[in-house]
């Protein structure tokens, strides 16, 4: 039960912390959210479009997360931890590759590396790149701004509103859940643990209470003039720097996709040494 409580509380803090990061005032945060969303998508598509055995071609793409973390004043350690937490899916599917694909592919001196390990490494690199891009998008933009960007780019209004309400009500629900759990713990002298019956009753109560509170919150929003339009303090306008951001990074991604920069660099250096 304590695990559940910790789970609820920690995921609440998780969302809260990412959202807090998005309140900072850095050049990254001041960019138009639409531009950031589109650039992230171009990045992901570029990374994902490599062949399955590509490793060196993927490496230069790290510049995007690194630059954004630096400019946006984001905590790299925290982001890395989140990436690790999300890794199991890709890891457990990818780990089959080395076992199933044993054809020798690369010979590094005396050590032979099978194709399976190469494709596995490629999968994990792709994973790190794409996940960091997604996290940086939220940490550098904020959820409301992303929703506004989606709205302005043609997403159905009802879906955007659903996203906003979902986000709001996650906090409401986890709040209620914490209260329920804590109340029970206090009254049961930290009892042996929740049986299935008690658990299901509590889930039911949770649902009812959250429905009730959500209804009151909705009425409160309506009576304060909520009309479905999302409003941010900063009006959305595409400035020169937004266009430059998108075009510059997209051009770089295309360049890095077509030319294998590490190979070029390595050859140049090797040539110099000789």
């Amino acid at each position, binding site marked *: 039960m304590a695990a*559940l409580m910790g789970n*609820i509380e920690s*995921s609440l803090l*998780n969302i809260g912390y990412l959202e807090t990061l998005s309140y900072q005032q850095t050049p990254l945060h001041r960019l138009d959210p639409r531009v950031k969303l589109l650039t992230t*998508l171009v990045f*992901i598509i570029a990374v*994902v479009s490599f*062949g*399955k*055995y*590509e490793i*060196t071609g993927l*490496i230069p793409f*790290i510049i995007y997360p*690194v630059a954004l*973390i*630096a*400019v946006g*004043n984001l905590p790299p350690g925290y982001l890395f931890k989140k*990436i690790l*937490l*999300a890794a199991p*899916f*890709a890891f457990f*599917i*990818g780990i*089959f*590759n080395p*076992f199933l*694909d044993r*054809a020798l592919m*690369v010979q590094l001196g005396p050590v032979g590396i099978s194709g399976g390990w190469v*494709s596995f490494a490629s999968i994990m690199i*792709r*994973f790190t790149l*794409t*996940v960091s891009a*997604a996290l940086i998008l939220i940490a550098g933009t904020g*959820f409301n701004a992303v929703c506004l960007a989606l709205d302005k780019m043609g997403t*159905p*209004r009802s879906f955007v509103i*659903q996203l906003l*309400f*979902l*986000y709001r*009500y*996650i906090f409401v629900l986890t709040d209620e859940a914490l209260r329920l759990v804590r109340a029970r713990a206090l009254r049961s002298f930290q009892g042996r643990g929740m049986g299935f019956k008690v658990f299901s009753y509590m889930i039911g109560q949770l*649902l009812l209470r959250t*429905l009730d509170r959500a*209804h009151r*919150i909705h009425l409160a929003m*309506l009576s304060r003039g909520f009309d479905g339009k999302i409003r941010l303090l900063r009006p959305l306008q595409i400035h020169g720097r937004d266009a430059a951001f998108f075009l510059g990074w997209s051009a770089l991604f295309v360049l890095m996709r*077509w030319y*294998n*920069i*590490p190979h070029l*660099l*390595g*050859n140049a250096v*090797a040539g110099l040494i000789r």
Partner: protein
Amino acid sequence: MHMADALISPAVGGAMWAATAGLTAYSAKKLRIDLDEHKVPLMGVLGAFIFAAQMINFTIPATGSSGHLGGGMILAILLGPYAGFLVMASVLTVQALFFADGGLLALGCNIFNLGFFPCFIAYPLIYKKIAGESPTPGRILLGAMVAAILGLQLGALGVVLETWFSGLSELSFINFLLLMQPIHLAIGIVEGVVTAAVVSFVWKTHPEILARAPSAPGAKAHSHKPLLIGLALFAVVAGGMLSWFASTHPDGLEWAVKGATGKEELEATKEGVHGVMGWMQEKLSFLPDYDFNKPNEEKAGKKEESWPDISAGKSLAGILGAALTLLLAGVIGFALRRYYSHSKG
């Protein structure tokens, strides 16, 4: 755990995104909610509820793995297929953005697997048929179980197909299928029970919610439209990509052909329909072997994966270059950070 971007090719991701976007627009159009309707907070709350429920992992006995609730069935039953699909999509979007649970490119696949199958196939075709308008607890349980199991099996099949078409995992179709389906059967049973429990609970305490859940509006003919659209899109995607399948390891068929004739692929005649089709395929496949800049490999015959031309010298240069690139990226990152934190004062 939802599908990650690392295992998706842009073709698969893009195609599933197109399907999902189409379904989302269609659902939104069908929904047409007013803002001050009771539905809005209900959708938001149920979304939060499913979101929280998905975080609770239960262990599946005798397999050593765990599963979690999908929630699509609950949403479909309580909200109707259109709202249910939108809510499921929103839950998965928040999970992808905040928890990196599922990639952004793979979001289209995840929404399709976890939203389309329960809301537009399992719900209308199974649950509604079994449970009907005013169901007894027994019928709710039966309907929820069958619908949940079917919905999850289809979703698992979707994952296998999408991973297989992307070609980044070495798992063969059959092996992956044999891994996924039994586990999702067990998860489906649990989901059916939980769905039945939640629906019965709501039925007892707030029956007006269930009564208000709209069935697909219009005559019977209309209620199959989203199903048909989704299936058609899925079929186009699958069919369109079958032509690319020829470029991976020998499949069962090729292996059998090889065993029978000594060659993996029989040469098609260059004349007539075959010739035209072959020529068209060559021209149309803009992503041969999922590689943008190696079109020549396609013509060379597809015995094995496109082997990047690796020699010892080239790989050393590559490693050296990669190390230098990383160093460069790190230096740039440090410099940027110092510049921006200095200028802030």
